[in-house]
């Protein structure tokens, strides 16, 4: 973190805390918004209208009020736990899932440091030197939520879903680490804001974003990330038409928390993809304009959010176009296709870097 004056420690903690609060709220808000986006985007893709009945005083707002009506519906439902299940784990599972996902949001670099009032404020809620590992570790802990949900539902369907979810997430974590090895080798750091700053360099006018330096890693990362977060064509644990999923015995807001976890993990995935491959908050050509630091930083935050939204849009498109993988084909893809490709990518990267330097 580049700064001029070292502030007292408690100020740093307070600022971090406020930013974490803001980031988590941002995540939850965007997750709610994403539920509307998913409905409308899938509707456009499938040549229909989508949900548009919720209204306040006759004002429909394109169906945006469905976000509120869904939330109210979920909150007012009976909190049902299957009598054959294990009650404490049943209640704990969604908390673990959503908590880990939401905490990942705190590590994402929303913007550059701002010079304001003679100090530099970081716009990364949790400025860690090992941000990448932190996010991956939290996603790993999220697996516990899935397994707890599946096991405590007292039904063979839930058990199957939980087992599938756990196997899928674990195999794709390994794949993700292998994929990220190559870009991290180039960046040389695990700090997410440093990575974003690194990509601000240009080469003959083209910004050195990860997507140009490591296109294969980007594609593999999106695939493995979608599998990790049980999204897009890898949503077999929540395979609605088959075994309904690991949350089969959940109702009301606990079920809502699982759905929100799905969206927040998508945001985390999009945020990681943006940071690692799309330059984070970097707007090409902005530094040349010489704007005041606050304005530049806010534009950077806006750029970050815009990039995250674009990646999310692509994820949604993929979800509504492709059918689902079968489970053994999914695991085969992770272990036999993605992992070797990622390692090959690493070899090529190291070799190319050695040649060029």
């Amino acid at each position: 973190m580049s700064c001029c004056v070292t502030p007292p420690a408690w100020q740093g903690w307070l600022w971090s805390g406020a930013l974490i609060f803001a980031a988590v709220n941002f995540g939850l808000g965007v997750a709610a918004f994403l539920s509307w986006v998913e409905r409308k985007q899938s509707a456009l893709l499938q040549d229909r209208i989508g949900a548009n009945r919720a209204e306040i005083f006759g004002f429909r707002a394109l169906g945006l009020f469905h976000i509120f009506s869904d939330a109210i519906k979920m909150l007012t439902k009976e909190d049902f736990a299957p009598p054959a299940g294990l009650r404490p784990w049943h209640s704990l599972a969604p908390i673990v899932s959503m908590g880990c996902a939401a905490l990942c949001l705190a590590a994402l670099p929303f913007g550059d440091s701002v010079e304001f009032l003679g100090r530099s404020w970081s716009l990364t809620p949790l400025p860690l030197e090992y941000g990448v590992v932190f996010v991956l570790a939290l996603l790993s802990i999220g697996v516990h939520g899935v397994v707890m949900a599946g096991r405590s539902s007292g039904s063979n369907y839930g058990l199957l879903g939980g087992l599938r979810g756990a196997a899928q997430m674990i195999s794709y974590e390994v794949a993700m680490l292998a994929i990220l090895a190559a870009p991290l080798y180039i960046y040389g750091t695990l700090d997410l804001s440093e990575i974003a700053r690194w990509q601000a360099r240009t080469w003959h006018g083209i910004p050195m974003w990860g997507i140009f330096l490591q296109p294969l890693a980007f594609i593999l990362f999106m695939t493995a990330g979608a599998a990790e977060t049980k999204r897009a064509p890898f949503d077999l644990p929540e395979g609605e038409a088959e075994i309904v999923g690991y949350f089969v015995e959940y109702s009301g807001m606990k079920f809502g928390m699982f759905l929100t976890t799905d969206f927040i993990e998508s945001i985390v995935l999009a945020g990681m993809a943006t940071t690692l491959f799309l330059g984070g908050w970097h707007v090409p050509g902005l530094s040349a304009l010489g704007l005041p630091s606050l304005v530049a930083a806010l534009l950077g935050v806006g750029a970050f959010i815009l990039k995250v939204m674009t990646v999310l849009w692509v994820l949604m498109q993929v979800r509504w176009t492709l059918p689902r993988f079968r489970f053994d084909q999914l695991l085969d893809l992770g272990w036999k296709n993605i992992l070797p490709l990622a390692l090959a990518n690493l070899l090529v990267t190291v070799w190319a870097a050695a040649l060029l330097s």
Partner: protein
Amino acid sequence: MSLELSSVKADLDAFCGAPLAARGTGFDTVWTVPAAQAHGALERLKSRHGFNMLADLTCVDLQGFGKETGAPSPAPAGARFKLVYRLSALDPATGLLNARLALDAWVDGDAGPVSAGDLFPCADWLEREVWDMFGVSFSDRPDITRILMYPEFVGHPLRKDYPIKKRQPLIGPPDGPPRERLTEADLRPRIVE
């Protein structure tokens, strides 16, 4: 139709020991076989004459046939149920029918012939339906179960003496009288031995 049924009939007549009553021509040929020899006839038709598909196995209850109109009942004296086996000789290469044949078998009482399940696996379900709807049992299937109706159903619905508006006794949950609160044991899946 490329299969000459006259030679097939001669073979079956020889097998059954007496000429079979016949009616219909071409694809609508119907022969009447004695129920005791129905299985043997099917086996011969399948193995020697190429009737490789059992298209249908059904039953007709002729109790009271022609009571209002005076039409003569085709049932021999005392017989009530008639099983109809419908066979097709299909040529797998061209997909054309070499022949179609229906075998009528009059059932004595409600004890039917030997099951055709070893010749045609689909006969398993077909016979269960005949038992369910008509009560015609098959001699080597003592543990035959219902297929369309629920297990506690009383009676055989397609029989002519089963009135269409007949009521059934009410049934409760499987084990004992209804309980107020479900327990864990009610929800654990039971593996049926």
